[in-house]
Every structure is written in structure tokens, then in C-alpha cells.
């Protein structure tokens, strides 16, 4: 069965920090949204949870590129994660969740899976 998704508004453009990330709360948990204005597309969204520590910190990592791939470096143990695929560059067995993200006027929308119970709660 295909999971249902929704395109939720998570924040506004003014909430974003150029070349960096912010964390938003979604129905799928904490997500890190990055705004890299020197790239096209400029918006990326990945899980905010660092898989190595289990802590919600990835939006606070430094962004950049490694061999052309846009990445964020975990602020705790410094592993790099691709902002496109979620792949960890240091450990091929580790991959974090990525989310489609778009700009709608001055609003940022994120496509997140919707689970029944959470929708009900919301």
C-alpha cells in the first residue's frame, strides 16, 4: 500500500539562514531544512537526527560540498551526509531520510509521509 503524504508548510523563507540549516517539527519527526542560495535547487531537507549519536543536531552542522556533492557535516562526530541522497560519505551502510522540499511564495513546503494516528492527533 502506498503511504499517503502531505505537502505541509513548515516555515517561511525568512526563517531560513543562507548556507546553513534550521530544524522544523513535522509529522515525521524533526527535519533539517538547508538553504544554499549559491546552488540550484537551493533547498534541501534531511532528517535532523544524527544516526551516530541519536541526537537531533544535523541542522546545526556546517554545509559544503565534497567532490561536488552538497553535504552537511554532523556537528558531533563530523561525518558527512549527502543532502541529495542522505548517504553518509564515511560509512556506506548509513543513510538518513531525505524529503522533497519546495518554495511556495514565501513559504517552505515539505513532503512528509502521513501516518494515520499522527494525522488524527494533529
Amino acid at each position, binding site marked *: 500500500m502506498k503511504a499517503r503524504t502531505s505537502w505541509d508548510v513548515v516555515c517561511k523563507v525568512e526563517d531560513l539562514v543562507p548556507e546553513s540549516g*534550521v530544524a*522544523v*517539527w513535522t509529522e515525521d519527526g*524533526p527535519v533539517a531544512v538547508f538553504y544554499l542560495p549559491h546552488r540550484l535547487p537551493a533547498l534541501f531537507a534531511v532528517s535532523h537526527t544524527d544516526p551516530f549519536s541519536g541526537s537531533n543536531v544535523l541542522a546545526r552542522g*556546517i554545509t559544503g*560540498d565534497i567532490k561536488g556533492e*552538497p553535504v552537511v557535516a554532523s*556537528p*558531533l562526530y563530523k561525518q558527512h551526509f549527502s543532502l541529495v541522497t542522505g548517504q553518509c560519505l564515511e560509512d556506506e551502510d548509513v543513510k538518513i531520510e531525505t524529503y522533497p522540499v519546495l518554495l511556495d511564495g514565501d513559504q517552505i513546503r515539505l513532503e512528509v509521509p502521513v501516518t494515520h494516528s499522527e494525522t488524527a492527533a494533529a
Partner: protein
Amino acid sequence: MSKQTLIVIGNGMVGHHFLEQLTGSAAADRFDIKVFGEEKLLAYDRVHLSEYFGGSTHADLAMGTADWYAENNIDLHLNEQVTAIDRDQKTVTTSEGSYGYDELVLATGSYPFVPPIKGNEHPHCLVYRTLEDLDSIRASAQGVKTGVVVGGGLLGLEAANALKSLGLDAHVVEFAPRLMPVQLDTDGGALLRHKIEELGVQVHTEKATTEIVEGEDCRLRMNFSDDSHLETDLIVFSAGIRPQDTLARDSGLDIGERGGIVINDQCTTSDPHIHAIGECALWGGKIFGLVAPGYTMARTLASALNGDSEAAFTGADMSTKLKLLGVDVGSIGDAHGQTPGARNIRFNDEQAGHYRRMVVSEDGKTLLGAILVGDNGPYDTLLQYALNGITLPDNPETLILPESEGGAPALGPDALPETASICSCHNVTKGDICGAIDAGCSDLGSVKGETKASTGCGGCAALLKNVVDSELEKRGVEVSKDICEHFPYSRQELFHLVKVNGIRTFQTLIQEHGKGHGCDICKPAVASILATCWNEHILATDHVPLQDTNDTFMANMQKNGTYSIVPRVPGGEITPDKLIVLGEVAKEYNLYTKITGGQRVDLFGATLSELPEIWEKLIAAGFETGHAYGKSLRTVKSCVGSTWCRYGVQDSVGMAIFLEDRYKGLRSPHKIKMAVSGCTRECAEAQSKDIGVIATENGWNLYVCGNGGMRPRHADLFATDLSDEELVRTIDRVLMFYVRTADRLQRTSVWMENLEGGLEYLKEVALEDSLGIGKELEEHMESIVGTYQCEWKTAVEDPEKRKRFREFVNAPEKKDPVQQWTTERDQRRPVLETESA
């Protein structure tokens, strides 16, 4: 065929090296190996013994591990002295029992010679050879202030260094008219003496001690033959070594007239089944008191036991290169010019403190020997000329003249023949290094691992690096100093680009001088450079994305994503009211509190959104940010000083607060720690800091480039008896020079060690202004001091900046769900992974 038994008596550097050689060879299978060591400890590096007082432990100095012995099936008996050898029965008797042998190796080393002076049996008369000796010296030095070393040779000066690092006023008493009489001539000895005395070690030459009696002011008094005397609390005898040949002597082996077990070229004694190596052995009428010849003997014997009929010890080069109390000393070959017809070329710069002497052959074509004091720069080149008989250039004097006077270029690694010995400890030639590189080694580390070069005394490290770099370059391997893939520059080069071109943002820098979008390596490095150059707020929009999370949120991220907060407590002085505020705030936010090593209070467990609220309260109570998150000045630790302490001679707290207020906020390649002690007892542990200040009767002594942590290093004495103004000016210059020239994440200790010319060069720059940039460095520092702002104050007052501290930008009230807490010893702490499972 049953195995034979090989017994090695002695577990020192040479004995251990012999075992390494043997276990790596075919003969290992032929023998059951037993080793007897008199000391309790496994073989350790005696060459670097004085580092024991610099924080090194036996484990740091150990040559091998008990596991290594076990893995190689070597039966190791430590703390078990061999008392007799029965050559007829082929047995050895120890304190524990009796053991048969087929082959016996004596690696018993030497013992320190204690001159027969009346009173030398006093309990505070000590020697300097083993770690136990060092423990005794340390115990004897407790609570006293003066120590004397008898003997001004190489080991004596090492021992003086050890006394000095224990905080004693150190004296050296030498019988000869000069220091290091074997290696140096009159002028060289005089310069060394001058330099050592400048470092606070007093030298007394031409002194023959007649007796040691009870002292008046100190424990002991030494009376000299010229009717003078010296009071001291302890005496360390370091007047040469004598071969430890008692066992051999008692069992009737041939012994030299003045001691030493006579060996032939195969290192075999007068008994064909007994062999001797190292300092106990006498070859060609000579004892070799250095480690390299001992290693060569060990290799020779291992080869001979493997049936190599050509293995032979044919003597050894006794050239030495050392740093004694920080002073370079080098002696090569025929240093005293005793070869018939030898001629001398001397260069003596009393101003710079450099003495250099070359001894050349009559025809001026070959180098026979050399002496260097003050700067070992030319040593490697000269040694290669001497060892390999390379024909000298037409104007050989250019080899020892300063370069600015049109000197010949140093003998590049290219000019060395394949047979040139690079590392004499492990007998590694340039050819071996080329072989290792051709076999796949592509950097210095792997070449060292493969060939063992530069893992003995380490004296060849610089030469090895040159050879490796040059050979790699020849093979088309680029030796990269680039900071990362985005900038083809080192941190220092980036600093120049930023400064010279007036670049103020990362974007400009990467567009004009780099490629791509940057990364977590170059961004913080550039942020630090920009901060040093222009000192703008680190949360200015352009700088925010460059910083590590700790810098961005001005707190230290902990493993669960929360932060710790460390307000500045300058000099560790805090009022009761402020302490109460810290307690109240910690209580309100349920923060775990701990006192840090830098005399302040660390508050753990604040969430991102709590940070600005907490800081608002702290700032209202008069606190400032402590920069615990930054690559910048952390704390200036202090003892209580002359205000309260009956020993203090200056106001160390006042000076610490002044220094902390001056340098707070300075952005640098790595963190900087300082301390100020109010007297020589050094309660603030200033000698383990980047900048250490110790009060004297006349002002302040400045120490620089010390380090605690993973790689401890004692700070070097930089200048003495400075006034307040001189002290601040000197620190300004040293710090600013560091900030401008160090590599990313390079502490001052490593920076200084890598600085060409090291401590001396740094002194020239900071004290003598040799580069003419003293004023510029001071002005730069002054401008940074003048533009200081408390980053937290600026941040909490600016609503835009405060927005950054929202945990979830769309749900301000949402708490991070993964943070789980428990209570331990009455405080809150995170639930550990192992507990939550």
C-alpha cells in the same frame, strides 16, 4: 631437532633491539629465548630519560610491551639479577634459580661512575641512569631548592635539565676547563656555557670536589680543592659511565685494562658461546657510549647467529647531534682536528650565539670533523660530507657561513649517494628509503613504518623528511599542504590572502581564490582568519554558516545535542554574589554543574532555546562569555599570589585578570590557555600552558608553548625578569605571530616545534624584532583588544540573532523528544545509550 637455549642478560635498549632483530629472523626458530633484566621495568628509552620529568611515563618510553615478548615466546624475567655464570656447565645462576644455556648474550650495559669523594655515600647523593634513579631524584628534590650535577658532559647536562624541570636551581660542576670536553673545543664549550647560564643553570668548571659534608643553608656542602665551596640539597653524579662487566670478569672472560668485555668483530667474547653487545662490550680498545653503535652490534650478532659469516662490527661513527637544555650541540668525526695535517675553518658569531668549526683534510677536499654550538642547521649536511667522503665545494667555508653572506646551498638530498646513511640507529640508507617508496610508501609516516628510519633517537627526522619529500616529488607525487579540496593554500597562505587583499567574506575568498562551496574544514578556518583580521561579530550574517555549532551558538554541544555554558571568571576570582547567581541559574534550569580545570564553573544540559534566556540572566549579574566554545583564549589560571600567600612575590591574580581581560575574544588557530604563578612553587601550573607567567623577585618570567592534554609539553623559558609592560608587549607579539602563522588546529607547542629555527627564531622575532614587525603585531593586537565585544551580550540584545536559537522554527514550544534524563549524585544527567536500551 630440539631447540637450543639462548639467554640474554640485560633488558636495556640494546638487549631489546637484539631481540627484535633475532625474532624477525630464521634463527628465532632455533632457540628458546630467556631474558633476565635486573630492573623491574621492561626495556625503555634511556636517551630520552629526562622526558620522564616532562610528563612521559614508562609506557611512553618503553621499547616494547609484555605482549610482544609473549607473542614471540620470549621468557622474560624482570627484577631477577644474574649473579654468576658457570662456563663449564654452561649455566647462569640468578636470584631465583639456575638455568642452562647453549648461547649466552651479555647486554648488561654500564653503570654511572661515582668519583671516590669522601661523603659520596650520603643519601642525597644520587645517580642518573634508570627510571628508579629518576624517582629517587624526584623524591630528594621535594621541598628543596638547589641541586648540583657533578659532570659537565652530555649526560650531566641532560641531568641538569632534569633538575631544572623539577624546579630546582641547577648547578653543573665539571672537573675539566670546559663543558662537554670530549665533543667540544674551548670556544664551543665557552659558548655552550654562556647559553646554559642564560637559561639559569650555573656552571662551575675546573672544580675538583674534595669532600661532601653537612651544609648550613642546604643539606650538603661540597668543598673544592681551590678552597671554594657550594651548598646544595642534592647531588647527582654523572661523571661518565663504566662498563657493567662484573659477571664476565668473575667468570674469567677477557676484560680490557680499564674494563669492558673484549669482543671480536662478530661480538663474541673469549668464550665462543658467550657474546657481548652495547656499552658493556670493548671493541678495538673502545667502549661505545651511544645507542647507535650498540644497535649495530645487536644487528651484527643477530646476523652471525643466523650463520652470516660476513657479519662484522667494524666500529661506529660517534658523531652526535643534541639539544641540551634547548641549546643545539653537534659534534662530528675528528672534531678536535687530531688527524695529521688537518686544517680548521671557524665561524664564531658571539652576537647570534653561533659557533661552527670544520676540520678539513690537508688538501681541503674532505671533511674530517666539525663542531656546532647554538644552531645545528648545518649538521645534516656536514655529517653527510664527512660520512660519505663527498668532495667539498671550492669554498668549503660557505657550508658554515650564514646564508645571507652568499653561502653555498645546503647539500640537497639529491646530492647524497644511495649508500648515504640517513638513520644510524636503524642503519637505514637513502637507498632503503627509495626502495620503500618504490614499494608503495607514499608519505613520511609509511616510510617510517616500513624502514624504521627516525624511530630511534629521532635525530635524523628533518633529513628523513627532506629525502622523502624530494624522492616523492621526483616520482611526481605532490606533497600537499592544501587546507582542503576547496583551497590550494595552507592556513598561513589564506591568512595572507585575506589580509593583503582586504577580503571580508568567505564568498569573496572562495570565488577569487578557491573552488566549490567550501566544507567543514575550510569554513571555520576562514572564519577564524576573518575574525583575527577584522574582528566582526561571529554571528554577523555572512559569518554564521562558517562556524562550528559551538561557535554559532556560543556554547559547547554535548553528546545529546544540549549545550554547556561557561561564563568567564577572570583569573578564577569570583565574588560570593556571582557564585550565588551561578547556583540560582543552574537550579532554575536544572543544569548539571562542575568545576573546570581552568578555575571556572561549567553548566551542562541547556537546550538551544534556553541559551539566550540563561545568558540574559548571567549578563545581568555581570558575567561575560567565557569563549569555552571558541578557538580563542580560554582561561588565565592563577594562584592566590602575594595578596594572601606567604610565599608569593607578585600579585599573580591581578596579572591573570589583566591578561584574561586583554586577550579574551582573540580568535586563533586553536584554543589558548594561560596561567600566572605568584612564585617559583608554580601552583598555577603555568609551565603546562601556551603562555605561562611565573613571578620572580624582580618581575615576571615568561614561558611559552607548553601544553597539557593528549600531548603534554613543558613550556620553554622565553624571557626573564620582565616588567609588566615588557611582559604584555612580549605576549602581544608571540600571540599575534602565532595567530598569523600557525596552521589550522595547531596548538602553540606544535607550531613552535615546526617553526623553522624553533624557539630561538621565535625569540629573535618577539624579543629582538628581527623581522621588524614588532610594532605591527602590537598594533594589531591593540586593535583587537579595542574592538572586543561580549558576543553573548550582542546576541541577546538583537532579536534577529536570538531567532537562531529556536530549536524548531515552526514549533517554539516543542521540546526535543530524544533528550532523556536521569539523576546521579543529586544532579541531572543524560540517560546513556547503554541504559536506555
